[in-house]
């Protein structure tokens, strides 16, 4: 069967001004248990690529510049 892509609102927000992924930082990507964060090729900054978040917060707590905010996923709010 053919496949399409649905748009979804995702809980992890990265402040591009503070994110230093373009300088080589990978902390949030490495600590995420669900492995849902990646580098956004357009900006060189981290972003949430897969909507599979446990809102467990390692990405936010371990970020060296305070660039990451984890919201409660929309379905749970």
């Amino acid at each position, binding site marked *: 069967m053919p496949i399409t892509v649905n748009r979804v609102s995702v809980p992890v927000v990265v402040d591009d001004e503070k994110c230093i992924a373009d300088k080589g930082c990978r902390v949030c990507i*490495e600590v995420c*248990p669900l492995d849902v964060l990646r580098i956004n090729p357009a900006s060189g900054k981290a972003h949430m690529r897969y909507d*599979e978040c446990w*809102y467990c*917060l390692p990405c936010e*707590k371990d970020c060296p510049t305070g660039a990451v905010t984890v919201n*409660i996923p929309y*379905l749970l709010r």
Partner: protein
Amino acid sequence: MDDSLQRIEYDLVVIGGGTAGPMAAVTAKLRNPALKVLLLEKADVHRSGAICMGMDGLNNAVIPGHATPEQYVREITVANDGIVEQSSLLAYAERSSGMIRQLDGWGVQFQKTGSGDYDVRKVHHLGEYVLPMPQGHNVKKILYRQLKRARVEIENRYQATRLLKDADGRIAGVFAVSTRTEQTLLIKTGAVILATGAAGRLGLPASGYLFGTYENPTNSGDGHAMAYHAGAELANLECFQINPLIKDYNGPACAYVTSPLGGYTANAHGQRFIRCDYWSGQMMLEFHHELEGGNGPVFLKLDHLAEDTIAEIERVLHTNERPSRGRFHERRGTDYREQMVEMHISEIGFCSGHSASGIWIDRHGRTTVPGLYAAGDAASVPHNYMLGAFVYGAICGESAIDDLAAGRAGTPDEDEIAAEFERANQALRVADGIPPGQMEYKIRRLVNDYLQPPKITRKMQIGLERFEEIREELPGLSAADPHERLRALEVHSILDCAEMAARASLYRQESRWGLYHLRVDHPQRDDDNWFAHSMLYKDAQGRMVSRKRPVEPYVIPIEERERDAYRRLRVEVGAAH
């Protein structure tokens, strides 16, 4: 097979770097530093497993002066309606206090009284076993330091998919896939310790969000599925894990933190309806009755407590284990001072940490397959919690090293390797197929529809038929990248666990463990026919079958008056306070 299959060799492979896994790897390495030990982790050991954000306390500390191993074994025997391997419980209980001292020495901080004693609290029905860890958020950091000191080798972002055996049926290898590249891995080894955690992505949570599970969703039952396919027996899988949770949020209520401080579970009128907030099947049945009854739903009541007590509860609950719960409450406008917190029950899962189901192990951590060991939430020792995972991790590490000294496995079967290579890469080759998330949603929705207690025979049979249809569709799973391959292979595990949950539940034709195995058409406990472990396994023809295993004679006798303590949990009207 092509260049994407890399072959390596270790003496011991530990699968899962959460709680039991690191302890197993460190213990093994310290016992024989000459051996090569690999810790394989699907995520990253810095922040993996059930305790990725730490833990707020020990729920089963057996500390001299507060509790004895014998008393603990009695309590857990009674809480499990008698179906326990007491020698395994006793092996845990006797090492519980030594493990606390070991962790204390590593820098884990436990709450102490002014005189320096451990500050143990009462939550269980009979004894005192709860020890708070106010600084418990740093447990993973401490474990990581020990892994480095012991020189354990670590491979992060690899998912183990199958265990391989030699011609004699002994564990001889692990097949694994990278979660970020197309690479696959064949690890030849003499022993494997499974520390893969709960099967927590089985039911669908009330929120409907696939990853809003009680358990860390990385714990998708891969270990249960691998053990099954390797021929190991799994025990009492029908004894589901079902926990009381905050409605819509996946955090526990949390009785172990709030109950010693005066919080309790209440109905809509703010009245207490259970005597004891310790999680047991009987407690969950009373919870379920109240939730669905005219006095429902159920709430966590803290609004009667003093300000400094509430502030302490907030500090512990909002910084440890599930630290996002504070922002969940804030968004809803819920303040513990003003309102009771609405509660609900979790989706079903397999987790011996809280219930009693898992890969069968004896008191040495050995499964029924030579060379295979299991510890923590994946293994069968009931109500084991975090401290049990540490203790059985250590026990497995010791047993594996000692058994390796006595003999080695041969070579894994090349046909099995080739078959697994095909299965592991299949989804990457399908362009127009079913995305993993969609198939997972369907399986887990069916789990809720057909397996969630109260269990009904015909519904579970229909569920099995639907699972069989989905099994035929597995080759049609489509993965766009290695990340989706990880999810696709997890779907295989989830489907295996769903079938195991249905077949194990159909096998035990009685009701037991309160809500965990409440069969509406077999409503009574039947000790004459079912006072036994149920063991599920793959037979020589590849069929999923079950058998009974007698409960070993008790080493700690249970007195008649204790036997039904957990069956008298309901507070009678007029007695509430």
